[in-house]
């Protein structure tokens, strides 16, 4: 996508990001001067804590990723919303209270509460590190996407920018994700989503989504002469080449020295050439957008409706709609989606996006990304089950998510906070449905990345709204990335070097080790952020959930609910969970595509590993606990 810099947007953006970072430092400093930074939690009202909980959880991935996936794949994006929220049920009903009774509040500590085993320390710190890294990838990808339309920078520059800012912050002062900052971010995200949804409904649906005098690009349709399934002549254009990709045929035409690709269709025996969007990578490294240089700006935002049906009548626009009407009207109408294909044309690499009319009925059902209805096969059904399993079990097993539960004074307040958080997050997720669908039909989508659907939709409604939403999302990314880098450098410096290797480092050396670790993790995150450009961030978060669910959850559930669980069982289960889930992810079709291979030839067709890796880890903890029972000496916590 090609973006202009908007100076108004830029101004608001810097003001808000500055404000949030400033507040973080302010509260962070204030907190560290008190006896304990988290001790302040005991004085915080449960309602503030609840919204802060939501702020913790609603990382940019939720906001950018879910809206984006709904905009591209319809209902399948909403699956993530359903699963992310359902995970809270596991956390609240099964994990939170027993954890509290163990008296330990992180996975490493809780898993080790009864055993004090080095094997558990090692495996748990490895799992913390790997889950953190997998959670970092989508944050970095999202950050790169966010910066593009704001600063007009390429994706890689955005990733480096975020990485650098965070490394500087973490290495110099440490950015405390304090309750008040998270409260502010969580609250703002929800309020802004309500505003955006209000605009979407007020606007209603229209066939011509024009904003700010900027007309929606109307895609050309040419009628060619056809002989024997081949295009033989197009008036005004010269035929350069024709290429079959799968069951589609694309035709390259040339006019005034510009070469462009068209999608050749013969529906109802009526041959048509439909204009597409292409990004062509030339052998000399130059990129062409629709056959021309970037500066010519011949690349468009997309996403529109081809038919709107209200009460059986076709209309051009609906005017303001209620929430139910909005959904049901979409269901009856038709939406134009842009699908991607990649192929080589001589020495050129072509990424082509062609329009495809999709019935609203199909769009509002699962199946466009995770095929479970028509065209389903065993793999795709397993993939769907696997995703739903990972989302359900992942939340409670993320190393950082339950911590805030313990920062409230009484169990009663902790529960109330959590329930408020569930309500706030649930409400937000219902709004993502409207924001995602709104982006799908308002001509704001960037075909190169789905992640910007919600912010770009906001841009259509005004520069101020756009910049505030981008700033909040960006600040959220910064906070999350900083927190993850601190956590993973801690896993290396504290858990691994200090406890596992038993190197009694002096405080000074420990700080140094932590800094080096933070720097290394930061650089690693930057590289991964670049490598995963263009992938939907919710999809990537799904992987982090799957690893967490496989590596941590079986161990913790057995520890809490089965008396015979042994330290060997726990350590083995974590290791098996990590290895199995990583192996499946690294050989998945999406990774195959990243390696530059054909995804169809991947070893297996499972995108999400949980369905295999979770039961495997459960089996491991059970088998190893029986084969290697725990030692008699039980340093039980009940005494403590």
């Amino acid at each position: 996508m090609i973006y202009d810099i908007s100076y108004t947007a830029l101004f608001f953006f810097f003001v808000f990001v500055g404000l949030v970072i400033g507040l973080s430092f302010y509260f962070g400093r204030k907190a560290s001067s008190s006896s304990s930074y988290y001790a302040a939690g005991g004085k915080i009202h449960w309602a503030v804590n609840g919204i802060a909980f939501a702020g913790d959880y609603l990382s940019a991935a939720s906001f950018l990723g879910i809206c984006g996936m709904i905009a591209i794949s319809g209902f399948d994006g909403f699956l993530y919303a359903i699963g992310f929220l359902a995970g809270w049920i596991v956390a609240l009903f099964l994990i939170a209270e027993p954890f509290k009774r163990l008296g330990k509040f992180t996975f490493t500590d809780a898993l080790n509460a009864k055993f004090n085993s080095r094997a558990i320390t090692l495996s748990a710190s490895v799992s913390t590190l790997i889950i953190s890294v997998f959670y970092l990838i989508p944050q970095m990808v999202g950050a790169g996407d966010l910066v593009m339309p704001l600063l007009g920078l390429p994706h890689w520059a955005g990733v480096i920018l975020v990485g650098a800012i965070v490394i500087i912050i973490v290495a110099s002062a440490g950015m405390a994700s304090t309750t008040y900052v998270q409260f502010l971010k969580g609250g703002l995200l929800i309020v802004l989503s309500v505003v955006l949804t209000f605009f979407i409904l007020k606007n209603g649906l229209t066939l011509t989504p024009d904003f700010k005098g900027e007309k929606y690009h109307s895609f050309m349709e040419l009628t060619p002469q056809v002989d024997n399934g081949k295009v033989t002549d197009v008036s005004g254009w010269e035929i350069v080449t024709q290429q079959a990709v799968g069951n589609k045929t694309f035709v390259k035409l040339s006019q005034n020295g510009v070469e462009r690709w068209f999608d050749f269709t013969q529906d109802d025996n009526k041959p048509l050439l439909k204009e597409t969007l292409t990004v062509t990578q030339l052998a000399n490294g130059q990129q062409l957008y629709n056959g021309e240089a970037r500066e010519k700006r011949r690349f468009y935002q997309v996403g529109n409706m081809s038919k709107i049906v209200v009460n059986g009548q076709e209309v051009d626009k609906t005017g303001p709609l209620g929430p139910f009407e909005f959904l049901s009207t979409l269901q009856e109408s038709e939406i134009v989606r842009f699908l991607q294909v990649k192929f080589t044309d001589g020495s050129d690499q072509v990424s082509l996006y062609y329009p495809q009319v999709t019935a609203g009925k199909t769009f509002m059902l699962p199946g466009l990304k995770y095929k479970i209805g028509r065209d389903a096969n065993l793999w795709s059904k397993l993939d769907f089950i696997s995703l739903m399993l990972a989302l359900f079990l992942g939340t409670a097993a993320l190393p950082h998510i339950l911590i805030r539960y313990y920062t409230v004074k009484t169990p009663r307040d902790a529960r109330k906070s959590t329930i408020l958080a569930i309500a706030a997050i649930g409400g937000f997720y219902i709004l993502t449905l409207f924001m995602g669908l709104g982006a799908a039909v308002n001509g704001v989508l960037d075909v190169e990345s789905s992640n910007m659907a919600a912010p770009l939709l906001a841009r259509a409604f005004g520069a101020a709204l756009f910049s505030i939403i981008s700033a909040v999302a960006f600040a959220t990314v910064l906070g999350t990335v900083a927190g993850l880098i601190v956590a993973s450098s801690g896993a290396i410096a504290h858990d691994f070097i200090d406890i596992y290797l038993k190197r009694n480092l002096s405080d000074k050396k420990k700080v140094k080790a932590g800094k080096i670790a933070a720097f290394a993790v930061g650089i690693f995150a930057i590289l991964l952020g670049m490598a995963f450009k263009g992938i939907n961030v919710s999809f990537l978060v799904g992987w982090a959930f799957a690893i967490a669910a496989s590596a941590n959850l079986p161990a913790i559930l057995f520890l809490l609910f089965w008396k015979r669980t042994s330290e060997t069982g726990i350590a083995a289960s974590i290791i098996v969970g990590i290895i199995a889930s990583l192996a499946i992810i690294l050989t998945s079709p999406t990774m195959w595509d990243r390696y530059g291979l054909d995804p169809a030839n991947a070893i297996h067709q499972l995108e999400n590993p949980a369905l295999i890796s979770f039961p495997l880890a459960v089996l491991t903890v059970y088998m190893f606990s029986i084969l290697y029972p725990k030692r008699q000496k039980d340093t039980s916590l009940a005494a403590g």
Partner: protein
Amino acid sequence: MLSIPVYKPSKHFVMHVNNTHEEKESLTKRKSTLGIRLFFIYLFCYAGFVAIGVFQYELLSIPVLGGLNLALAYGIGLILFAVILGIVYNYYCSRYEDEADQDTEVEKGGTA
């Protein structure tokens, strides 16, 4: 001073927790039984959604509520149901805690 905040969870998170609040075993048991029951109720509903998707996909397109298809109604329903179950859980846990407190007071009153 420049320093990296080395992540020490035990140091950060244990201090503020109200460990003095000792809970009676019977209360703990009542609460966890409730939690496990509600968990299975939700699991059943959640698994139901997945099962319909996998085995009876056509059902998802049936319009059910205000013109919405089953997929949307079920999905939004799952989100709302999670919130409702959370409220139910809180209500009963609070009641159990109140009852346990009353019992303690009665016991205290009895021995005094």
